[in-house]
Each structure stands twice: as structure tokens, then as C-alpha cells.
């Protein structure tokens, strides 16, 4: 999994950057005053997400037509399903994967189209091309800036099993959808949406992005952070507050269960596919048979036709599963890994404080310096905890809604599948039993 978290460059954050780009929120010296109540109340995130996925289907991925309304305002009107005031002002789509071949490597880029009415953006529309590495970079930056926020997960770098060719169509399409989700989740996040790196990601052309990327902390210092982070996580956290203990335990169980659900769902898809393959052969045999049975032609052909229709319905069901359920479940598998990382980072921040506090008891000499540092660290810990707590609630709410929708949709797909098959067979039966009486068998088995 690629979102390998670099250590929270918390000390560096405090020095320079504001963790979020864009409009500074008054009050609060650092990053802690993000989660204000009004920010959370703004939109029901679930509606945003649902709206967005509908938006995606409106904007047909593979044929972006210039005739489509491009003003953000008209798009708001287009997708407004809820009665609540829709304050969405950032629309992102990911589409049009393209393959690039250089002497060193082959890679895929995706087109990112952003439409916005926000003032801090220079324009209302942007189109850029990004490759997976760029997404990785963005994620890393977000994690650095907000170590205890729940950053959306990226799709995996490689698919472990069954993939011979890295760039097969299904893989690319699945990844594209996941990347689309990734960016939109960031856009929906009350804090992350204003992140400066995010803005640059969406708007900068390739060369600008390269030079921008180089501004960050150098490789060696990042490595140092990693080492420190690993070391501190190994020491473990002594005083994790209860609520975070609960959170941790939830995450562990959730992670287990969602992984299982992921496996089960993938397996169901596979079984349905195998069933579909066999069914395709089943119908035609009845047609073959009808060639040698004069009196049974209608019946046999009828059955063949029913089987073929059920076959088609099965295909639809499979597609439904792979669109409604599998990507959602998989995203939460990745989220659960993400969450464990977030917990670790929070623990690290606390550990820093704890170790300084411990140091104070021993090194009376630097008492003043240490006390000051401890003060800052206490702030930091409090911010981190609050940020996580709030984001946690938001995340849980989203999770419930997303999984609830996904399962409900799946159930709906299955109902539709059975209803279709039922209709087919019932109409066949009617046609057979409406025949004149002498056709009816005297002997009912």
C-alpha cells in the first residue's frame, strides 16, 4: 500500500506553512482551529458524495463534450437533488487515461478537469494531466500537513494477484474511478479542500508542478523523519486516552471485517461470472434438441429463450455488483489501513510530548526550555486529538452511509435480477399452459 506515511513533520509545520491554503480562518495560531462547528454543519457530506457520483454519470467520462454546460453555477443547478442549499463550489472529474512512452518508462496519465467558482482560484476552469506518482505526492503532502486527519485512500500501486499486464483496461478503469473518488473526497473535506498543495495539484501544468514539488523538504530529511517515526512507534504509547483506545479497537475490528467482506464480495463476483459462462452454453442445447423433436419445438425453444434472457440478466447483475459494491468495499479496506496510520501518527505526537515530559523530570538543567517545548507540544497534542475526533465522527458517518447505500443497491440489483428472470419464466409458462386441452398431460407427476 502506497500511502506510506512519512513522519509527521510537525515541527516543520509549526514553523512555516499553514496547513491549509486559501482563506485563513481567524483565530488560532496554528492548525488547530480548523474544525469549527459551522464548518461541519455546512453540508451533509453524504449528499455531497451522492450528488457527486450522480454528477460523474452525467458527465460521461469517455466523451467530454464541449457543449456541456461549463459554468459551475449551471452545474449546481443540474445536479441539485436536495432541497438544502448546495454550497458546492469545486467540481472535479478524472477521465481520459492516456499512455505515455518514454525511453525510460511507460506510464499512464489521467486528465483532471476542475471547475470552480472560488475566488482563490485564478480561473474558473482548469485542465491538467496527472500521473499516479503525482497523486502519491499529493497524498503525502496532505498527510504531512494534517497528520491526524483521515486522508482519503489512494488505489493500490499494483494489484497483487492475477494481473499480468499492468496496463490492462479493467485495471485502468478501476483505478481511474478510484482516483476520481479520491479527489472528490478531498474536495468534500471541510479542511482538506482548502489545502494549498491540493490547489496546485488541480491547477498547475506539468512543468510548474515539478518545480513546485521540489520545494518540499528534501529526501534525506524525510528519511530522518521516517526513522524517528518508526522508533517512536515501536516504543508504544502509554497514555492513550480512552476514547482513542476505543477508536483503535474499532478500527482493528472494522479492518478485519471489511477485509473479509471485500474477499467475499470479490468471490461472489467470480462465482457469478463462472455461472454466467456456463449458462451461455446451456440455452443453445435446447435449440439443438428442438431440431429433432417436432412436437416439442415450441417448448424447447421457449426454454432456450428464457435461459438466454436470464443469462443477460446475470450479466447485468454482475455489472451492478462491480459498480455498486466492490469499489466501495475496497475503498473502505484501504481506508481502514489509512486509519491505522492516522492512529499511529496521533500516538507519535503524544509520544513526543510524553518523552519530553519524562525528560523534564530527569534533566532539571534545561527546565525552562523544556517547559516551553512541552507547552507547544501540549497544544499540538490537543489540536491533533481534536482534529482526529471531529474527523472521526465525520468519517464514521460517511462510512455508514456509503456502505449502507452500497449494500442496499446490491440488494436492489439482486431483486431486479430475480424479477426479470421471474417475468421471463412466467410468460413462458403462460404460453405453454394456454394451449388447447388435449396437450395437457393426463398424468401429473
Amino acid at each position, binding site marked *: 500500500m502506497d500511502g506510506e506515511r512519512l513522519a509527521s513533520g510537525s515541527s516543520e509545520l509549526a514553523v512555516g506553512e499553514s496547513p491549509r491554503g486559501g482563506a485563513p480562518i481567524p483565530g488560532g495560531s496554528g492548525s488547530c482551529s480548523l474544525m469549527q462547528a459551522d464548518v461541519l454543519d455546512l453540508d451533509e457530506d453524504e449528499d455531497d458524495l451522492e450528488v457527486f457520483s450522480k454528477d460523474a454519470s452525467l458527465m460521461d467520462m469517455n466523451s467530454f463534450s464541449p457543449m456541456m454546460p461549463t459554468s459551475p453555477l449551471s452545474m449546481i443547478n443540474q445536479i441539485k437533488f436536495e432541497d438544502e442549499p448546495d454550497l458546492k463550489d469545486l467540481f472535479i472529474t478524472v477521465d481520459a487515461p492516456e499512455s505515455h512512452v518514454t525511453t525510460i518508462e511507460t506510464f499512464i496519465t489521467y486528465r483532471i478537469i476542475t471547475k470552480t467558482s472560488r475566488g482563490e482560484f485564478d480561473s474558473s476552469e482548469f485542465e491538467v494531466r496527472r500521473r499516479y506518482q503525482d497523486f502519491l505526492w499529493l497524498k503525502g503532502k496532505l498527510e504531512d500537513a494534517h497528520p491526524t486527519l483521515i486522508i482519503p485512500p489512494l488505489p493500490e500501486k499494483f494489484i497483487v494477484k492475477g494481473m499480468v499486464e499492468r496496463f490492462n483496461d479493467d485495471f485502468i478503469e478501476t483505478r481511474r474511478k478510484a482516483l476520481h473518488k479520491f479527489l472528490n473526497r478531498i474536495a468534500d473535506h471541510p479542511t482538506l479542500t482548502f489545502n494549498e498543495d491540493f490547489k496546485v495539484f488541480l491547477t498547475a501544468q506539468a512543468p510548474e508542478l515539478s518545480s513546485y514539488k521540489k520545494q518540499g523538504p528534501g529526501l534525506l530529511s524525510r528519511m530522518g523523519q521516517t526513522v524517528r517515526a518508526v522508533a517512536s512507534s515501536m516504543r508504544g504509547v502509554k497514555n492513550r486516552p480512552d476514547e482513542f483506545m476505543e477508536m483503535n*479497537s*474499532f478500527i482493528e*475490528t*472494522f479492518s478485519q*471485517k*471489511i477485509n*473479509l*467482506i471485500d474477499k*467475499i464480495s470479490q*468471490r*461472489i463476483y467470480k*462465482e*457469478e461470472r*463462472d*455461472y454466467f*459462462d*456456463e*449458462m451461455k*452454453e*446451456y440455452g443453445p*442445447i*435446447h435449440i*439443438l*434438441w428442438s431440431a*429433432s*423433436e417436432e*412436437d*416439442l419445438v415450441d*417448448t*424447447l425453444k421457449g*426454454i432456450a429463450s*428464457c435461459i438466454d434472457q*436470464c443469462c443477460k440478466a446475470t450479466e447485468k447483475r454482475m455489472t451492478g455488483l462491480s459498480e455498486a459494491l466492490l469499489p466501495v468495499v475496497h475503498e473502505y479496506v484501504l481506508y481502514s489501513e489509512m486509519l491505522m496510520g492516522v492512529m499511529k501518527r496521533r500516538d507519535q505526537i503524544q509520544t513526543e510530548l510524553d518523552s519530553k515530559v519524562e525528560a523534564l523530570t530527569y534533566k532539571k538543567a534545561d527546565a525552562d526550555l523544556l517547559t516551553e517545548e512541552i507547552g507547544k507540544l501540549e497544544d499540538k497534542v490537543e489540536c491533533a486529538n481534536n482534529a482526529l475526533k471531529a474527523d472521526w465522527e465525520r468519517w464514521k458517518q460517511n462510512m*455508514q452511509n456509503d*456502505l*449502507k447505500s452500497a*449494500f*442496499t443497491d446490491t*440488494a*436492489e440489483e*439482486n*431483486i431486479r*435480477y*430475480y*424479477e426479470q*428472470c*421471474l417475468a421471463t*419464466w*412466467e410468460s*413462458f*409458462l403462460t404460453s*405453454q*399452459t394456454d394451449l388447447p386441452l388435449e*396437450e395437457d*398431460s*393426463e*398424468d*401429473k*407427476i
Partner: protein
Amino acid sequence: MEQAPPDPERQLKPAPLEPLGGPGAVLEAAAGEETEGTREDSSGVDTMTGNDFWLKKIEISVSEAEKRTGRNAVNMQETYTAYLIETRSVEHADGQSVLTDSLWRRYSEFELLRNYLLVYYPHVVVPPLPEKRAEFVWHKLSADNMDPDFVERRRIGLENFLLRVASHPVLCRDKIFYLFLTQEGNWKETVNETGFQLKADSRLKALNATFRVKNPDKRFTELKHYSDELQSVISHLLRVRARVADRLYGVYKVHGNYGRVFSEWSAIEKEMGDGLQSAGHHMDVYASSIDDILEDEEHYADQLKEYLFYAEALRAVCRKHELMQYDLETAAQDLASKKQQCEELATGTVRTFSLKGMTTKLFGQETPEQREARIKVLEEQINEGEQQLKSKNLEGREFVKNAWADIERFKEQKNRDLKEALISYAIMQISMCKKGIQVWTNAKECFSKM
């Protein structure tokens, strides 16, 4: 010499057969009554049809199966299954049935009965037995003959066989069949004493006839083709059906895993917990519903299998015709050549090669007396030959007539039965869909309450 002409009256009469000098089975007429047979297709349900050849209605059922051990022909311990056959006679007036006979038979005895019927009623499309070993199995089904599900399906198949025989206008009157149902001990000996094994046409002879017959009745040739096609297509269908069943089983059963995981997950969820838990329950219901569904389908497969095996019975009738026809053709040819020989001898010309002609040339003419003697012998043979040809011709035509009548009967039965089976398949699918809708509707409700 082949067997006695098809004798629809060969039932319940003493010594119905004319074996080749063997002692012959003396089958006494059953003490008293002839009993009626009915066309039945499930135990206990009898319907009066036009084919009531037995005076009293009887119900036949194979009601139980039991595992037994015993010693076989070479005195080795073996395990086998025995089936209980119960015969009830139904009083006309009040429809109550009285158990008249009840005995145990094993599969090999059924086979013996059928082989006997095949020999003595070659013009009849003899109903087939259920398969000896389980074929067209899919993974959950066992191929073990001792498996209870297999035994159960076989029990039903054996009952079906008996019912088919009992409702056949000709077969139902057979004495051996009657004894099969009524005389437990000694039945095997009785059958063997008929000497039917000796009467059976050798496979080799039949094969020979098939290749060398010149003018078989076209209808039988077509019938043979039809039966080959029927066998091929039903086999194919059963194979694919088994694979489809396998896959369907997989789809349903994997859903069962959701049940356990949802339940465990619900433990950590406050608001979602109840919805998850009950949804999980429905997933379990869904997963287990496939067992009954596929069980029903297995019965459908058995119905098709019966007709798969019927194809072989059809071919047997065709083979018999070919054999008789070939026999006739050979006899006619033989007669023609004898006549020619006679003519040559009489007129003194030698148009055809004959050993006698050669030796005459080599060793000198034969005397007129010798020639006369030979002509006389030939004339006798020709006479005999003409008689035989006449009777063979008659036999042949009788056979074709009777066989074709039975084939027409069979065709109608087949069309009825297969149509019904196919419709019952549709009904099964409908039931499966309805169950699916219900389970998923329940699950959806649970999910939406999450």
C-alpha cells in the same frame, strides 16, 4: 432359429415359451385371478385409463430401501441395497387399498427382469432402469452408490420402472413380471428356467446384421438416427446442467459468509448493528435455500435421464428388426441359389460355379441316378425353404407392425412426459426466483435500516 413369434397373450398361461428342447419353464397360471394394471406415475395415485388389462386395480410402490450384507455367488461378503416392493389391490367400489404383496428385491433382480423382457418382447420399447452408477454428478452430489440421496433417487427410479411396465398394454400381463411382484423366493430360478439367456440374440450377430442388411424398413433407420440424436443431446444437456448447478451452488453458498461477518461487525456498530445483524441472517437463509432448489432439479435431471436410457431401448427394437430382416434376406438368397442349382442340374447347364460341377469336370460325370437323387434333395430343401421364407416374411411383417404400434405409443408418451418435465423445470425456476426476491427484499429492508 429365433424365438417364438411375439405373443401378446404370453401371460399367465402354462409354458408360454417354446424353448429349443429345453425343459422350459412351466409357469402355472396364477392361482385365480388376473389383476389389473393401471397407468400410474406416483405411488398411491391410480387413474383408470384405456389400458386396464388387469381385472383389479393395483398400486405398486417401492417404498423403502435397506442396506444389507450377504454372500455373493463366489461366497464373498458384499453390501448391497434391497428395495421393498409393495403391491396393493384396490377395491373398485370404495377405493380402499389392501396390501396384497410385499417383498424385497435388489437392483440385480430388476436387471434380470428387464433382460428377460427384452428377450421375449423384442418389439416393445422396454422401459429402462435407473442408472446403475451415478453419472452427471456435480461436486456436491456423491458418486457413491451407497449415498442416501442416490439410493433415494434410485428407489424412485425403480418404482417408476415398475409403474411403466405395469401400465404397458403388453408387458403388464407377463407372468414373470407378475411373479416378480409376488413371489420373493425362487423367482430368480424361475426366470432362469425360462432359458431366456439362450434365446438372446448374440451381440455379434446383431452387429453383423446391422452392417449387412440391404433393405431395412426406412422408418427403423430413421428411428435409429433419432435415438442417437436423442441420446447425444440429452447427455450434453445433462452435463451442462450439472456444471450450471455447480456454479449456482457456489454463488449462493458464498453469500452465507456474509452472515457470519455481518454478525461480528454488528458487534462494534451502534446504529448499524441491528440492520447488519438481521441482514446477515437473510444472507444465511439465501445461502441455504440452494439445497432444496438443486434437490428438485435433480429430479428433473432424472426425468431426462429416463429418456436418455429409453434411446437405447429404441435402438434395441431397431436392431431386432435389422436382424430379422437380414435373416429374411439371407434365407431368400439361400433359396434363390438353391433353385438355381436345381435348375442347372435339371437342364444340365452349369452357369454357376459349384463344387459338384468342378468335381464332375475333374472326375467325370455323375450317373443319372446320382443326379436324380441330388435334384430330389434340392427340391425338398427348396420346398422347406419356401415355407420358411413365407413364415419369416410373416414374422417380419408382424414384428414391424407390432413394433411400430409400440413405437407410436412410446412417442406419444415421450412427448407428454418431456413436455411436462420441461414445464416443471420452468416452475422450479419460478419458485427459485420468487424465493430470491423475497430474501433480497428482506435483506434490502435490513440494509436500509442500517
